[in-house]
């Protein structure tokens, strides 16, 4: 039998409705739309629909066939994206002054999500300037070869090599010609200066060519690897990154060694939809590993073009927002929205909002609404949306404070170290060396408290260097910056039901 209607919706009942519910709904609607007595618009049409729906649903055999058809259409599937909001308090005191509320927003894949590896539209942009000579370029080429080997018949791989100009080493093609690609990659030599804009432009162009029109959906992504500073074209790079963000083509930026501009690479990443920022590769030996990890991440990506919107109530303002998982980085909302890019099946993304709540009277108040939009190719081509409101109770005679959820306390503990690190870097920039030295020392203590001994040591070392020479070593600086970003949330084995009394 040919179906095309949502019979449950026509009768206004849920898919698991009982026979009695079906009969009752039918009686009501039949009476309402009966052509002889109804004054309603399109009564004849509606009545016919109701009849048809009833006939199928009331017959157990026909209903079973219909339900099966519904499942095949994907109509009764639970949502693929789980959006969870956890505020630091559920009940707030009525205060005459603003108070701070933390909101942890977690985005994860539901168990129903298929574990199919989606086709990739991947563009590699490799720096082959003179400074990459030797082990660096060698490792980069090997990493590219590795990625090449992993590509399947449905994947598109393109490769751009750049120094002061860019060349398309491997034009994109669905189903790579691996033999030809191998020799093309091999032919890359180190020479020239560094102009990232050239590489970005050509790389983006190539990926954009294949961006739409893949049946079953695909993940478009760019990976940029560089070891140097670019001069004069920063603004151009940022503009391109913004454009990539609009098109939902996120760029993973990676810097190797210590001479590259982390600010620029960070911005290119975040503007294009990689909210975690850039990656730091400390030695050429690690290039392969990082590329491997990125490819794994792309392989387990189930949602792309993910964006998060937050609509605040009148008396609520956003103080700061951070990505806290899979790594820590500050987030900028533009027009209430932030791009989160790709979502992996086994790695949820978590965002922490620091909200300033104004004066509210006693009772429940709706403080804000969080909405997520994403493309989940295994579920269809229509965007998937999830929405949740945060409504909290305000009380004027609150004599006790509830315990703050431990997840929020631990996340904030790490976040505050990240903030101190950013502050210290800013102080160094404006020449407040003493303040920065103190801050780095305090950071080291906090890191020790968390058991992060290596990072603490690095911070102390740099604090000493800073005190003596007035500058940080570029390697030490990157180690601290990227180390604090990578502070992971405490494992859940630490069972603490509540924040201890102090």
């Amino acid at each position, binding site marked *: 039998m040919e179906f095309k209607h949502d019979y449950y919706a026509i009768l206004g009942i849920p898919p698991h409705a009982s026979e009695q519910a079906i009969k009752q709904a039918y009686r009501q609607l039949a009476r309402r739309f009966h052509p002889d007595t109804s004054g309603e618009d399109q009564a004849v049409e509606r009545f016919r629909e109701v009849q048809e729906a009833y006939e199928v649903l009331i017959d157990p055999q026909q209903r079973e066939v219909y339900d099966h058809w519904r499942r095949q259409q994907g109509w009764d599937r639970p949502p693929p994206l789980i959006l969870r909001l956890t505020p630091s308090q559920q009940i707030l005191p009525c205060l005459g002054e*603003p108070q701070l509320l933390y909101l942890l927003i977690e985005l994860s894949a539901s168990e129903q999500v298929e574990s199919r590896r989606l086709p990739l539209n991947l563009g590699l942009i490799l720096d082959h300037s003179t400074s990459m000579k030797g082990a660096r370029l060698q490792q980069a080429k090997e990493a590219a070869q590795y990625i090449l080997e992993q590509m399947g018949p449905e994947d598109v791989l393109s490769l751009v090599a750049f120094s002061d100009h860019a060349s398309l080493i491997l034009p994109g093609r669905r189903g790579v010609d691996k033999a030809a690609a191998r020799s093309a990659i091999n032919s890359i030599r180190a020479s020239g200066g560094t102009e990232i804009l050239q590489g970005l432009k050509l790389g983006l162009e190539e990926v954009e060519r294949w961006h739409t029109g893949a049946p079953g959906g695909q993940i478009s992504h760019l990976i940029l690897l560089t070891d140097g500073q670019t001069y004069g074209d920063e603004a151009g790079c940022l503009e391109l990154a913004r454009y990539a963000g609009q098109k939902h083509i996120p760029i993973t930026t990676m810097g190797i060694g210590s001479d590259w501009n982390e600010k620029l690479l960070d911005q290119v990443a975040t503007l294009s939809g990689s909210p975690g920022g850039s990656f730091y590769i400390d030695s050429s030996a690690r290039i392969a590993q990082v590329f491997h990890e990125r490819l794994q991440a792309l392989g387990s990506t189930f949602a792309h073009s993910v964006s998060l919107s937050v609509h605040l109530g009148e008396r609520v303002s956003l103080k700061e927002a951070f990505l806290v998982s899979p790594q820590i980085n500050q987030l900028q909302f533009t027009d209430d929205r932030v791009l989160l890019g790709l979502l992996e099946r086994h790695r949820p993304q978590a965002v922490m909002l620091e909200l300033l709540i104004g004066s509210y009277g006693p009772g429940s108040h709706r403080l804000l609404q969080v909405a997520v939009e994403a493309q989940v190719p295994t579920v269809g081509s229509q965007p998937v949306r999830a929405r949740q409101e945060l409504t909290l109770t305000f009380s004027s005679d609150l004599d006790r404070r509830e315990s703050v959820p431990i997840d929020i306390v631990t996340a904030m503990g790490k976040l505050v170290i990240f903030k101190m690190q950013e502050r210290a870097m800013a102080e160094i920039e404006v020449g407040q060396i003493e303040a920065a030295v103190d801050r780095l020392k305090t950071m080291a203590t906090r890191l020790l408290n968390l058991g992060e001994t290596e990072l603490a040591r690095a911070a102390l070392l740099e604090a000493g260097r800073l005190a003596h020479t007035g500058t940080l070593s570029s390697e030490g600086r990157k180690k601290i910056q990227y180390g604090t970003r990578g502070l992971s949330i405490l494992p859940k084995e630490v069972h*603490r039901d509540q924040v*201890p009394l*102090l």
Partner: protein
Amino acid sequence: MIKCPFCNHVYPEGTLFCEECGSYLAPSRAQATDPLTDQMTTEAERSRTDKSGFLTLVLSIEDGGTIELPLSKEVVLGRLDASRAIFPDVDLTAEGGIEKGISRRHARISRRAGQVFIEDLNSLNGTFLNAIRLVPELPYPLKDGDRVQLGKMILSVHLK
């Protein structure tokens, strides 16, 4: 507004950590005592009828004196500061607490179900148990003869 107990910076109510020094900010409202779960009350009863009920904590400070006190439920070690209303059970100021980097509320030794634990209370210079630095706010089992270090002060712990 809440004030950071260590660096005096002021923050709106609800803020969890001081952004200047990273310390945990205790809420200004008193936290209510949460009702004991059944498991906890049975444990309490068990420890009450426990024959090893009376326990004395003996702290021998290296190159210093010895402090003996009964350990009924818990004992807080630190430095007395009347202006901030901090009155630890064991005040180490006289033993060189300030020079040795001891925080006002440094560590806590407690008893639960016949076991003794030590916990670092987010002290600035840390608490070490047999040379291992304790993760703050986590209880670690304490045995007779253990070596505890608060900041730079080394103590031998005996239980009798």
